[in-house]
């Protein structure tokens, strides 16, 4: 199960052991182990309520696990807020929670990390130029850094979030259902952006219901069911049919 076995040169980026998460009486995550190497692309699947969102929220600091340990680059860490996970270089791209629709691209990319001069005043020119560069870097060409996010398509919005992660030198990017509700063309764009992440040496955790999307980019697939880890397989050791069978069995069983 250790991906280090097949590639002894790959370095472990994130390791979580014995994670338990409760919401009141609901045991959302039950003794979950999870790991991902630098530059690795892991697909996280499982039916609704399996615990996928909860797991990534623990990684990104939005929730705190009641039990378990987290290691980043071999050192034990405590992630108790989004600030902590961001400091480690973990960026999360949520469905609706990543961008502010009425703000410009420039303001969104630098949200919370604005470049400033003395007294905290914005370096607008720097923001505008660097945000356009960040987008071009992943192959997204947009008119101006001042157009609002609400004018962009779903695929373009994901592009902005991903460009932001790359720009701030994320080491791990978590994508929560990035291709949901997108057209075929947009899905292709987004998957290409995700490939850009890989080319930049950034590890990716990718939650989705669409197994075909996972198969086109993931190295490894982790299946969750009812809060537990059901399987952890390398893509080359399985296929879409077997995987969906596994998930289905997990849901019923």
């Amino acid at each position: 199960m250790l991906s280090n076995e097949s590639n002894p040169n790959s370095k472990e980026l994130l390791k979580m052991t014995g994670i338990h998460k409760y919401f009141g009486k609901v045991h959302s995550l039950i003794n979950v182990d999870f790991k991902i190497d630098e530059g690795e692309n892991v697909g996280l699947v499982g039916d609704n309520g399996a615990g996928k969102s909860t797991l990534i929220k623990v990684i990104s600091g939005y929730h705190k696990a009641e039990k378990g340990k987290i290691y980043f680059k071999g050192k034990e860490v405590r992630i108790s807020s989004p600030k902590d996970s961001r400091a480690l270089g973990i960026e999360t791209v949520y469905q609706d929670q990543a961008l502010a629709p009425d703000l410009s691209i420039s303001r969104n990319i630098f949200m919370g990390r604005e470049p400033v001069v003395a007294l905290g005043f914005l370096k607008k020119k720097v923001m505008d130029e660097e945000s356009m560069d960040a987008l071009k870097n992943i192959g997204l060409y947009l008119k101006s850094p001042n157009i609002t996010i609400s004018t962009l398509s779903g695929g373009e919005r994901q592009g902005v979030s991903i460009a932001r992660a790359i720009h701030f030198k994320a080491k791990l990017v978590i994508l929560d259902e990035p291709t949901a509700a997108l057209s075929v063309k947009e899905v292709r764009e987004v998957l290409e952006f995700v490939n850009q992440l890989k080319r930049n040496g950034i590890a990716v955790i990718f939650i989705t219901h669409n197994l075909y999307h996972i198969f086109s980019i993931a190295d490894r697939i982790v299946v969750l069911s009812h809060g537990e880890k059901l399987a952890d397989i390398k893509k080359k050791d399985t296929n879409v049919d077997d995987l969906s069978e596994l998930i289905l069995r997990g849901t019923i069983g």
Partner: protein
Amino acid sequence: MKNVENRNKKFLGSFINVSSLGAIGIFLVLITLLAIFIPGHNFIRPDNIKNLLSYGAEFAIIVLGAGLLMIAGEFDLSVGSVLAFCSFIFVKLFSLGINPFLVAIITIICGAVIGMINGLITTKGKILSLVATLGTMMFWRGITVVVSGGEMMPSDTSEFKFFTSIFNGKIKNFFPSQALWLILFAIILGFILHRHKFGNWIFSAGDNERAARSMAINTDRVKIICFIIVGLLVAFVAIIQTVRLAAFSSRSGTGLELEVVAAAVVGGTSLRGGKGNMLGIFIGAFIIVIIKNAFVLARLPYELTYIAFALMIMFSVLLDLLIENSRKKFV
């Protein structure tokens, strides 16, 4: 609409957007109509303009703060009650013979503390600001009436000439100092909102609080600071008003919250937060002031203004909904 927005952004920079252009338009149309149609040209008489600038500026100062808070996604309905309470504090302390500058500082601190309480109830108490400040509105009004006995109290600061001129003076016997304070606050808050990182946090917190939080912005702190700014400005205006009227009235500020929200909304501030600009808020305030003035000059009962402002707010909500729905169709 997309192209118009982009062109405007290029021409006019970061301080304006489409909706504030609307406000400027309404403003120009209004003053033209009033200048022509109010009988006896009473509208454009220097006396009237002087008065407008005085209490108009007082009103507008509060709208600046309230608008900022609305962009952050919260409301403060307690402004009218806090105005009355701060006015009472000022008059009471001044009547004890304390130096008016010291009294002013204490009053302003009171305003800040009251604002902070509003902020804490909303963010830490997790109560909708609309509800929380409805409660504090009643609370502070109640306290004010009880401690003042519901009566008016005179307060003459005229022997402190310098103090009085700061808050209610006139430059060249025309331009009121209130208007100067308004311009100063508008410039400061405008720069903070549009050119400072804290302004970006205000917009972010109001537009998508979850996104802001996941980008490690402390949205609670941002909102509390905005509430404190409102409290500070309300206290400041309370001092100005008390000096100008040379009295305290426990009824002062009644209905203010409605007018303040209407002003911000007319100025292009979204009721849902995340959208708005300082210029629009500034103009929106004066539109409301002018409408009130028009009603007075036309000898219409001031209760009618309540109807006018309520309709403006409702219209703005509907417009907002329409835009939201049409946006959903495109995306």
